[in-house]
C-alpha cells in the first residue's frame, strides 16, 4: 500500500438531486500517469474538484499523498498542484508575478521561490516571456505557464484537468512532452481528458468514465487486448500460397483476403506473433513485401465499453506506429 498515492473509495457527488459522480473507486500508484477518459459531462471535473478540496466531500473517502480528504484537506492542499480546465491567470500580471504569487501563497521561502521560478520558466520555455503580461501570451503559452505554476511547490501529485484542451496539434504534442518530463522527475500525474489519443499516449493507466461511473480501468494495451484480436495486414509475393501456409498456424483465428493482400485476425499478442509469421513464410519461399500491425484503437475500446462514440474527437487519431510504441513503455 505504500506506493499508492491516491486511494479513492465510493466517491459520490451530487448537485441538488443530480448525481455527477456516482460512487467511483480507484487508486493511483506513486509515479504513475493516470487518466480519466470520458465525454463532456461525465463528471471528470467534479471528481477533480472534490479531490483537490474545492468541492466539499459528500460521500465516500479518499486518501491523497497519505492524508485523508475528510480530516486533513489542508495537508492535501500543500501536497498537490492543480491545473484547472479553464484558464485561471490574472490577465494583468506578468508570468513572473503569477509564479511568485503562487509560491508565496504556499509559503515558499524567497530564495527557493526565486530559483524555482527560473527553473520552471526554462522548463516550459517561457524565459523570454518572464515580464510579459499573461494577456499577451498565446493559448499554448498560457497553458504552459499554468503547468509551471502547478509545479511551483514540487507537488507530490499534479492534477491536470483537460491539459491540452483547445491547443493545436504541435502544441499538444509538446505539452505531452512536458507532462512526461515532469512525470519522469517523480511527480505523479492525475489527468482528465476526452481525447482518446491523449489518454492513450500519455497515461500508464486509464479509467473510462461515463455518467459519473468508472466503466473500466487498465493499461491502454490491456484495454485494447480485452477487445481481443490484433490485426495484421500482409502483402506477399504470392497471397494464395501465403494463405494456405498460415491457415493452420496457431494464434491466427481468421484470414481475410483483400484486393492486394491479406488481413490476419490474431487472437494473441500480435507483436509477438508477427516475427514467427514472417519466418514461417520465408522458409516456405513466400516473400513479404508489406506488413502492418494494427492494434484496436482507443476509439474501438471506448465504443466497446460505453456503447457509444465520443463525438468530440481530438484533433489527431492515434496512429498504428504510436500504439505500437506504447507497448515498448513499461
Amino acid at each position: 500500500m505504500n506506493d499508492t498515492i491516491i486511494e479513492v473509495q465510493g466517491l459520490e457527488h451530487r448537485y441538488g438531486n443530480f448525481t455527477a459522480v456516482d460512487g467511483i473507486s480507484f487508486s493511483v500508484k506513486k509515479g504513475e500517469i493516470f487518466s480519466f477518459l470520458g465525454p463532456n459531462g461525465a463528471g471528470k471535473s467534479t471528481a477533480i474538484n472534490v479531490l483537490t478540496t474545492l468541492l466539499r466531500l459528500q460521500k465516500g473517502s479518499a486518501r491523497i499523498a497519505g492524508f485523508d480528504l475528510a480530516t486533513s484537506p489542508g495537508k492535501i492542499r500543500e501536497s498537490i498542484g492543480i491545473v484547472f480546465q479553464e484558464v485561471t491567470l490574472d490577465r494583468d500580471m506578468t508570468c513572473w508575478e503569477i509564479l511568485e504569487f503562487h509560491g508565496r501563497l504556499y509559503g515558499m521561502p524567497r530564495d527557493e521561490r526565486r530559483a524555482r521560478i527560473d527553473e520552471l520558466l526554462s522548463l516550459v520555455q517561457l524565459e523570454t516571456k518572464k515580464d510579459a503580461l499573461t494577456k499577451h501570451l498565446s493559448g499554448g503559452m498560457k497553458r504552459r505557464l499554468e503547468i509551471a505554476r502547478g509545479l511551483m511547490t514540487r507537488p507530490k501529485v499534479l492534477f491536470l484537468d483537460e491539459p491540452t484542451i483547445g491547443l493545436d496539434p504541435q502544441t499538444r504534442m509538446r505539452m505531452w512532452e512536458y507532462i512526461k518530463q515532469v512525470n519522469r522527475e517523480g511527480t505523479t500525474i492525475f489527468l482528465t481528458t476526452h481525447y482518446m489519443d491523449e489518454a492513450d499516449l500519455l497515461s500508464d493507466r486509464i479509467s473510462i468514465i461515463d455518467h459519473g461511473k468508472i466503466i473500466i480501468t487498465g493499461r491502454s494495451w490491456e484495454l485494447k487486448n480485452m477487445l481481443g484480436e490484433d490485426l495484421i495486414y500482409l502483402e506477399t509475393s504470392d497471397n494464395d500460397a501465403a494463405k494456405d501456409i498460415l491457415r493452420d498456424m496457431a494464434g491466427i483465428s481468421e484470414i481475410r483476403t483483400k484486393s492486394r493482400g491479406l488481413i490476419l485476425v490474431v487472437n494473441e499478442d500480435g507483436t509477438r506473433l508477427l516475427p514467427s509469421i514472417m519466418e514461417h513464410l520465408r522458409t516456405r519461399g513466400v516473400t513479404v513485401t508489406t506488413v502492418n500491425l494494427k492494434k484496436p484503437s482507443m476509439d474501438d475500446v471506448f465504443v466497446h465499453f460505453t456503447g457509444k462514440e465520443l463525438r468530440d474527437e481530438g484533433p489527431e487519431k492515434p496512429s498504428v506506429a504510436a500504439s505500437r510504441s506504447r507497448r515498448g513503455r513499461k
Partner: protein
Amino acid sequence: MVNTGFTTIYWRDMIRYVRFKTLLISSLVQPALWMAFFGIAMSASFDRLTTTVPTIPGVPAVGYLTFMGAGVIAMTTLFTSLFGGITILFDKNWGLMREIMASPVPREHIIFGIALSGMTKSFIQAVIIMVFGLFLGAQFFNGYTIPETFIAILGILLFVGTFSLGFLFLSAAISVSLESPEGLQGIITLLTMPIFFASNALYPIDAFPEVLQIISRINPLTYLVIGIRYFAVGDDFQSIGVHYTATSGDILVSYAALVIFALIMFSVAWWRFKKAVVT
C-alpha cells in the same frame, strides 16, 4: 510553513493598483477634484449665507471648506472601501479565486489581505485630500505645533483605517456572494446614497427630521466624520453657525462605534467566506 497569506494577497492587490495607471490617477485626482470644485463652490455660497448668521463669541470659527474637508475624506474612504472587494469578483470571473481557494491560505487571510490593501488606498487618498485641502486654504491643523499635527494625522488615519476596514469587510462579504461586478456596483449605488447624505459629512445633523437623525446616529460615517473633525479642526469650533464641541470621551465612543462596526462586518465576511464554494 509560516503562513503569511494575507501579505501575499495584499502584495498582489497593490500590484494591480499601481499597474492600472488611469485607475490609479483617477483615484488620486478624484477626491482632489471634489475638494476643488464642490468644496469651493459650496463654501462660496455657504460662507456668504453664514455671514448673516450671528457668530458665537469666543469660539473659533472655520470656513465651510474646512468643515466639509472632513466630509470629503470620509466620503472618499467610503467609496474606495465599498469598491475594495471588487477584486474578489474579478478573481472569481478570471478564475484566480480558485487558485487561492485551493491553496493552503486560510480564508480569513483573503479577507485581511483585501482589507489591508483597501485601507492603504484610503490612507493615500486621505493624505492627498489633506494636503490639497491645505493648499486650497482649508484651516486644518490650525495653530497646531508640529508634534500636535503629527498626532492629529495619526488620529485621522486611525479613524479612516478602522472605518475602511468595516466597509471593506462588508464589500468582501457582498463580493464573495455575488457573481458579477455589475451586481456589486448596483449594491454600492444603493448603499452610498443614504450613508453619505444621512450623515454629518456635508451639513450639521441637528436640523434633520427625526428619522434622518436616528439614521445618522447609527451611521458609521457620522462617527468617522466626528473623529476627523476632532483631529483636523479641534475640539471646540463653530462653522456655518453651529457650535461643535467634542470631549475625548466623545471621541472614544465614536472610535468604539467604528471598531464594533468593523468587528460585526468582519464576522459577516468570515461567515460568507466559510460558506463560499468557488469552482
